[in-house]
């Protein structure tokens, strides 16, 4: 999975957000390492909407220009599956001493 897609899914895992808030959240999750500009973010959002991983909730109560999105049930399952895959990968990396806290310690 495209890491940026995963970050978007992560940012929506606990609360619904509008687009700009998603970009902000991703920035803070990654300590500023990943910046999603509109040219990257919204085409991904469109694809997520088309694939049914996220759902649009309508306009933001405070600002009608913003629309709020949340994770769909499918999106949540996809995010969980990806998390498990990453977790398994990390376990393997530990067992090969690529990360601290490996199985042999």
């Amino acid at each position: 999975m495209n890491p940026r897609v995963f970050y978007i899914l992560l940012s929506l895992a606990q609360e619904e957000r509008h687009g700009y808030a998603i970009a902000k959240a991703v920035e803070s999750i990654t300590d500023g390492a990943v910046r999603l500009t509109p040219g990257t973010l919204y085409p991904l959002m469109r694809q997520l909407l088309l694939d049914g991983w996220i759902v649009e909730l309508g306009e933001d109560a405070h600002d009608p220009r913003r629309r709020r999105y949340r994770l769909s049930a499918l999106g949540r399952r996809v995010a969980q599956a990806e998390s498990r895959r990453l977790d398994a990968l990390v376990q393997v990396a530990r067992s090969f001493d690529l990360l601290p806290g490996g199985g042999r310690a």
Partner: protein
Amino acid sequence: MRAFFARAILLGYPLEFRAQFGEEILDHLESDPRNAAAQLFDLLRGAIAMHLDTFGRDVSYALRRLRSAPLFVGIVILTFALGIGANVAVFSVFNALVLRPLPFAHAASLVVVESGGALGVLPAVSLPDASDMLTQGHSIADIGTVSTGSDAPTMLVGGKPFALDGIEVSPNYLAMLGIAPELGRGFTAADARPGVHNIIISDEMWRKYFGADPGVLGRAISLDGQPYRIVGILHPHQLLPLPNAEAIAPKDFVMVLPANSTRDRGARMYGAIAVLAPGISIQRANTELALISQRLARAYPLSNVGMSLSVAGLRDLVLQPVLTSLWIVFAAVIGILLITCANVGNMLAARWSSRDRELAIRRALGASTGRIARALLTETGILALIGAVVGVALAQITLQLLSGMIARVLSESVTIGLDLASLSYALAIVVVATLLAGLTPMLALRVGDLQLVLKSAGRGGDSSHGHWVRGALVVVEIALAIALVTVSGLMLRSFIDLVNTPLGIRTTGLVVTNEMTLPIGQRENATAQAAAARRILRHLQALPGVDAAALAVEYPEADMEFEETTPVFGRTYTRENAPWSTADYVSPGYFRVFGERILRGRAFTDADRAGSAPVAIVNERFVAKYLQGLNPIGARVGVVRGPSSHRWTTIVGVVSNERLSITTDTFGDSPVSPELFTPLAQAPQASFSAIVHTRSGDATTVGREVQLAVAQALPSVPPVQTYTIGERIANDTVQARLTTTLLLSLGLIALLLALSGIFGVASFSVTQRVHEFGVRITHGATSTAIVADVLRRILVTTSIGVACGLILAACAASAIVAQLGTISPFDPLTFATVVALIFLTAILASLQPALRASRVEPAESLRYE
């Protein structure tokens, strides 16, 4: 400012995306002002990526869809290939003639000098007029003159004679055109000094006769016994503009115009190319030349009254003679392209209509109409592109097949081939064809229809709207086909008319040679010339396949014409009404060989020799034009015997008219020129041609015999070529033949496309109505009634197409009326034939579908339910 750019970039995104995210993106950009430029750039990149992504999906979607219908795909590609290929082929010719730069430096400022007079405007000038053009005005910076020479000089190589073909030029001619020799030097003024004989030879001649030895530079070669020193060798395939031959062509050699070139102001027999002064347009130059012409007319009334000097673009030299034909063929291929698009549009409409459930499902799953349209256009574009690839290959093959004819029409001056311009044109055509063929059927694909389709998916609902579009497309196809076939039919009729123009001679069993020139030693004195002529005639008459033989300076389709003044004894003339006639010098057998009738008096005999009383024979036209009120037999006319001297000669016979060329139709008011024949024995010539009438049928064998006989009789004369009169006529009419051939092929393609279009509509409509036919047959309808019903519908559509087509055809025919000769542009026979042909095509195309309709099994039809 940033918002403005952002909005502009957003316009590049698909509409649905803009609707969903547009405002939010603008808000986002406002909320996060960091690194604005980078963000905007990213936004732009996103738009491009999204389109590429969509395009990629559409392509793979289209390929998947197309794979499932190979027959359909094959037919569409073939149709596109015909339309695009025809366009690319004709464009290549157009490109070579009109767009590609001429192979001369500063070609834009080069012009051809023309003289206008009673005979029209010709690209020829006299030497004194040419020099006055340069000195009396300011618009011409330089002028170079050229003569294509009269006789082909003979060069001896290893004792064998070869005829060469060269030109004579003023020393500045080559440099003016930016032509520098590959080896050696160009001409300078010093080369024109009397007694200097220098020559520049072509690369081809250098290789053929001198084995490409660079040592030949400075060496002398002998042409007709005169030594010439080779000072330069031209680049390979060097083309030279030859206005007095109305061509741009390669030649064997270039020499300097001899000092004794005629300075007669009335001798407008030289070609001239001029360089316009910087900043001077052709119009401005012509304004000044008109003034100079008036001045010259006042100064030299005898030679210059009524004459005007002018210049024209160098390109006109090759373009003018073929321009009209080129436009007609170009218009025809555009017509073919439109028919192609209508035809493909029709097929696509059928494919995309009701039965295409896949489209309906996509629509139901939320794809917008615009999105579907885009996918379908991609599908069409892929088909057009593959069609173009096949079409370009077809064009290449066609050009190769026609290259012989094209080269003869365009006089070797242009190389026709596919280049970047042709390929760009092909791509442009692909875009146009994609839009035309892809968008029209979408008119039938209204949003509502798609839902209707889904509902009636099982039956394949017939949307009457879609049917209307398809009918209209077939009408367009038929109308265009009628116009095209009519134009090609009219051109065919006028071509048949042209080649059947009576020449006044027999046209079968004749073998002719090109002009042969006697070698040095025999050429100078009349006795030797006469002896050579007798010797050749004896050899020719002895040939087993030859029935009769003759020699002549000119004969019909010989591609030359000499006119001389021929005053009638006892009459006085002014310069304006001086009698001119075509002068020919013939052996006694001439009239018999050509089957011309002696109408009064007698033919020449062997008794008309040097020393006997001078005699002449004139044609009917001469009598009508110059001898009114006189008994022609016994009348005396002046026959030219050298510069401005005549010998009074008695007319002993009047012969029926012969026409010297099938294509020229101007000599005042008649296509036949007044002609005066003199016995070759009384006025021997250094150059003449032989004509034989064959006893048996085989012209090729007799041709070879004639070549051998000439070689035996006169071993020092270069080998001659032989032709049948039919070949000469074919050569003379090659342009009309090429145009007619192309138009007929295009007409045939148009008919085939119309056939397939009508078949498609008929077949589709029958499929739509299977249920109806089933019910009607159950209720007792006969097969005849069903067939009649299907045919009636198609014939109604066809009739509408024919009505539109006739109007279109009449317009097209009026536009080419000048090309039709004696054939009327509204020639009833052609129009009637074309209409009959179209109806026949329509019936042919709908026959199979109609029969299928009449054989519908009632039970079977219910299965469509």
